[in-house]
């Protein structure tokens, strides 16, 4: 009895020391940031319009070329109507859009990852996108229930160097972990993707199949893996500090604003340069498509320093 007890105590003390040592190392690792202080800023804003006007034409065209986006749209046959809607609407504005599915559907084309586990599927999609990126340097991951205005995404990252790690969206906190919410879309730079691919090989820190006891949502697993590589979540917002990534629908946000700011509903609600909205039905999305790319008052012209052309073979924008 006594010898069992003392073995137990030895085991407990050894285990405790082991844990302390491991967490000490962990703090060391996550403490090493790579060059550049960008990661310490957790709010990310677009370049100001004044700054843009000061730029030369050659710098403008460099940036226009650099700011091309690969969209990874994570679908399942259950989301077929939203899949079809995303295919017919916002995804046409990505420089390349690829649909990644859990299982194939006869109705629509996609890369069939043949994977039911969401985190494993996301990893496979990320690997595939990285290998097929060509010269695209920005990546946007979303489900088809999210609607994105890619031009505004480009405006947000216009002056950011994709060979630096960026992980942007609407940020939330879970204990010590800042993560980007999946429902409002996730933006990753080429360097962030590269580091992810590397850490995917580390089965201890970034396992493919999580613990059997509980399932961490993939948005948090992604944040954890990225954190190990020194990449931190940043909240995308406009010059006034309004969030650009929304998981709620436009009417939901307007309705909230009518309750909170009845004197100034639209001004207080949402950014003019909003990037994403969520929770909208296919017919609401088609109306939003018209509202973004077509409906406007005659005579109100904006002289933006950059031009993005409408996509080919499209009649709803």
């Amino acid at each position, binding site marked *: 009895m006594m010898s069992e007890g003392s073995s137990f105590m030895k085991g407990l003390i050894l285990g405790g020391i082991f844990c302390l040592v491991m967490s000490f190392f962990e703090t060391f690792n996550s403490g090493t940031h790579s060059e550049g202080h960008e990661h310490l800023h957790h709010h990310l804003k677009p370049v100001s319009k004044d700054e843009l006007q000061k730029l030369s034409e050659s710098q403008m065209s460099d940036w226009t070329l650099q700011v091309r986006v690969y969209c990874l749209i994570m679908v399942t046959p259950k989301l077929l109507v939203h899949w079809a809607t995303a295919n*017919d609407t916002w995804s046409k*504005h990505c420089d390349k859009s690829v649909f990644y599915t859990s299982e194939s559907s006869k109705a629509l084309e996609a890369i069939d990852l043949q994977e039911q586990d969401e985190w494993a599927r996301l990893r496979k999609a990320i690997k595939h996108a990285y290998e097929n990126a060509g010269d695209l340097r920005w990546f946007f991951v979303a489900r088809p229930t999210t609607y994105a*205005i*890619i*031009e*505004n995404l*480009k*405006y947000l990252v216009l002056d950011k160097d994709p060979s630096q790690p960026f992980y942007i969206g609407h940020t939330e906190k879970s204990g010590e972990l800042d993560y980007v919410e999946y429902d409002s879309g996730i933006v990753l730079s080429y360097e962030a993707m590269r580091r992810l691919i590397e850490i995917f090989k580390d089965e201890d820190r970034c396992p493919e199949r999580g613990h059997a006891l509980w399932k961490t949502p993939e948005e948090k697993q992604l944040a954890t893996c990225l954190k190990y590589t020194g990449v931190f979540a940043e909240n995308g917002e406009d010059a006034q500090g309004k969030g650009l990534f929304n998981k709620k629908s*436009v*009417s939901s946000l*307007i*309705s909230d*604003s*009518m309750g909170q700011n009845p004197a100034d*509903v*639209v001004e207080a*609600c*949402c950014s*003019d*340069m*909003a990037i994403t909205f969520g929770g909208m039905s*296919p*017919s*609401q999305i*088609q*109306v*939003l*498509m*018209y*509202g*973004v*790319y*077509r*409906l*406007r*008052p*005659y*005579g*109100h*012209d*904006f002289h*933006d*320093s*950059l*031009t*993005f*052309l*409408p996509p080919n073979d499209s*009649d*709803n*924008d």
Partner: protein
Amino acid sequence: FYSLHAENVHTTHSIHTAEILNSNILIVKNRRAALDLSQKVRVLCWVMTQPQHLKSRTQHIRATWGKRCNIVLYMSSEASDFPTVGLNVLEGRSQLYWKTIRAFQHIHMHHLDDADWFLKADDDTFVVLENLRYGLSKHNAEEPLYFGRRFTPFVAQGYMSGGAGYVLSKEALRRFVKGFADGLCTHNTEIEDIGLGKCMETMKVQLGDSRDVLGRQTFHPYPPNNYLPRQLPRPRPWYLLYEHYHPVEGPGCCSDLAISFHYIDAVQMHTLEYYTYHLRPFGYKYRFNPGERSENRNNS
């Protein structure tokens, strides 16, 4: 809008401004100013409303598009500090044509010289004034004309949907009021859009074509989600049965420079305001650019 006379409308003009950056350098900037038609095409808007709707509906018009009219009048059975004009009628569906008659008579008496065009809208109609002015700019307010969403039945020459909003030229307003003064037009129906349409026909006011240069509608009697979602080819749904022009479902339904949508509740009113005047894609080159020089040459 299509016009009977082919006209080139010069819609943008350049302003040269000189800026002296330092004493030695003078830089001339060439800027295209947005053409402000509000002084050239004056619109008086009147909104058909009632006391019970001021808080639930009309205040949202006042907060959004109402202020873009040259003059806006909120017409009700009672005067109030909203402010509303009291028309000395009863409330109720059966009184709508009386309200319309009284409203136009009031406007004719007090505001005839304050505007060129006179728009009627419901308290659940969303209107884009800039697009209305653009459409009207090619037309002469001294001619007897009326624009809106053209419906076919009940009136031989057709009539304009009340809910989508309709607009009378100054001459059309004069003739409407004269028609009642001379007994040529009477309160012969409770349905205001049909009643007004019949009087327009009697007084020889012409129906205009409000579609854009691509044949797309600008006035809409229902909300955008009735028209925009893609549909498989199908027989006309009930809300398209009265259409004079062949209706199109899906993206071709509606002009980029839409003028109105109807059955718009408070949340939708602010949503459309956000879509029209705020939310936009940075740097995007719009496909539809009427009024640009090259486009006009192709269309005449």
